[in-house]
């Protein structure tokens, strides 16, 4: 920003000089060309070079800033993907599989690196059990994931839980391929976390 304001006056001078050179009123007799002043040509060149250098530096800094923004965005996206990846359960169970525990361990790293981020865990079930009992089963699944995280140091106040039972299936269909996708905890950011950092 400061580079741009320094460059501008020099640029205006150069343009003014070139415009003055090119101006030739038709009615007036051609005036004697002014004596060539090598010093002024060199000065103009030097100014033009400095403008180009400043412009290049500006482009570099924009590119660097862009790259940094891209990196931050990618880091956020990766962290968000890790944090919000669903975990899956067996039928009528809230037990954490090794895959689910690994997913929660990864979330733990993200939560530790981003102390302002808060999350909501939503427990879900497949369609097979009782609609009413499944609300409680979903609640137990969400509580199980929360307990895993709070027992490893995440503040209780940073995680709230809700159950949707079998009311919000992720996959339609009435077979195991749909059911296995629906027996899940979903994770979403409920506060903070606009720019997540990777786990340290």
């Amino acid at each position, binding site marked *: 920003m400061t580079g741009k304001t320094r460059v501008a006056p020099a640029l205006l001078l150069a343009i003014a000089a070139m415009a003055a050179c090119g101006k030739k009123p038709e009615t007036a007799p051609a005036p004697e060309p002014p004596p060539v002043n090598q010093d002024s040509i060199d000065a103009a060149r030097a100014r033009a070079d400095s403008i180009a250098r400043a412009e290049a530096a500006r482009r570099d800094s924009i590119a660097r800033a862009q790259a940094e923004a891209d990196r931050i965005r990618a880091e956020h996206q990766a962290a968000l993907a890790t944090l919000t990846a669903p975990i899956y359960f067996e039928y*009528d169970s809230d037990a954490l599989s090794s895959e689910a525990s690994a997913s929660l361990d990864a979330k733990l790293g993200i939560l530790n690196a981003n102390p302002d981020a808060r999350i909501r865990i939503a427990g879900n079930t497949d369609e*097979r*059990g*009782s*609609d*009413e*009992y499944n*609300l*409680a*089963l979903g*609640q*137990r699944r969400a*509580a199980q994931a*929360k*307990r895993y995280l709070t027992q490893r140091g995440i503040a209780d106040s940073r995680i*709230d*839980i*809700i*159950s*949707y039972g079998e*009311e919000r299936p992720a996959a339609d269909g009435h077979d195991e391929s749909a059911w296995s996708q629906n027996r899940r905890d979903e994770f979403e950011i409920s506060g903070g976390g606009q720019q997540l950092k990777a786990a340290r």
Partner: protein
Amino acid sequence: MLAFVAVSANAQDTTGQRGVRIGLTYSPGTKPGVVVLPVSGVGGDSLQAIIARDLDFGDRIEVIDGSQVQQPASGAATPSYAIWKSMGAAALVQVTLTPSFARVAVHDVTAKKVAQSRDFPLAADVGSASWRMDVHGISDEVERWVTGVRGVAGTRILYVRGGRVYVVDSDGFGEHAITSSGTAMAPAWHPDGHHIAYSVLGSNGWNIEVLDLANRGSRAVTATSGGLNTTPAFSPDGQWLVYAHGGENGTDIYAVPAFTGGAARRVTLGRGTDNVSPTFSPDGRRIAFTSGRSGHPEVYTADFDGANMELLTPFNFGDQNYRSNPDWSPDGRSIVFQSQLDGLFQIMTINLRDRSIKQLTSEGANEDPSWAPDGRHVVFTSSRTGVKQLFVLDTESGRARQLTHGSGSRLSAWSRYLDRAP
């Protein structure tokens, strides 16, 4: 005063003490034939049709179509008993409309005289919800006169469709939504018939609301706000509301005063398991509920204070069967519930005296049973048509009829008697 034919022990009517039988011919396994005579006046045709259908839906009476018989105008002359008797009729229902009431007479065809007669209130606006309910009240009393057991036409059924609580008359008419939007579940009747409770999804979880049907005013139950609050049930005296509350350590059943508010009292000690869907015994002393404490859902009973808990539904250790959603019968003798067979729920009853189990359904998946006040009919959710619909089943004969036609209807709850009849 009437020719009384003794009813043998295995006759369908096993509750003769409850009503006053007028002693019509009633053989074991045979339903008495009844003709509903044409009714003159505004709305007379509808009234006749509704009463005939109600008596048919009651499953205790054989409704005989008398439309082909030449009849004198209603109330104008003595019926020709001989003709009706030849058609198999044991009784005739004769309704005479006046501007302010309906005079209802039941004729005993064998004795050739009026056996019962009474005037019933009848709303002036023919076809309105209250007029229909008044007609259902007539049907229920006629059924009591003829069979000794009051009918259940004057009742309504709550259920959930598309996240809203709906109500429908027992004959499938008058269906309308009660809650406006959002996601509601598990509606339940207060015994006064004027209030309901249900669970509704909010930003902080599921909460119980009690709604006054007259003014649609609702009140949140805040004793355990947040987390999971669902499956409300009122005690038979209407004083208590029990429901399932879940936080981060399982779901247990709690009790709060139904209307005065106050602290919640914990009823079950599930130790991290799920305990839901409570239902009261008719005397209010015990509850039945679904619990996962054995590792999978089964039905248990306990005292209202949580003591003396016992497993009700038998299971083999280690099996993966699933039994849930109990509803205690109004006569206190049995509990209806759902049990998974080959991956599908079926409706079953368990006799509380000898623990014998009777399977009531086998077609499609069948869930969430709720007793009618007669302790004979059950409403439940069935997938037999391809989508979830409510069906009414006569547990004696096995006859079923479809109650709703809007797809995705479920979680039904049958009211107590709502009509104006005694």
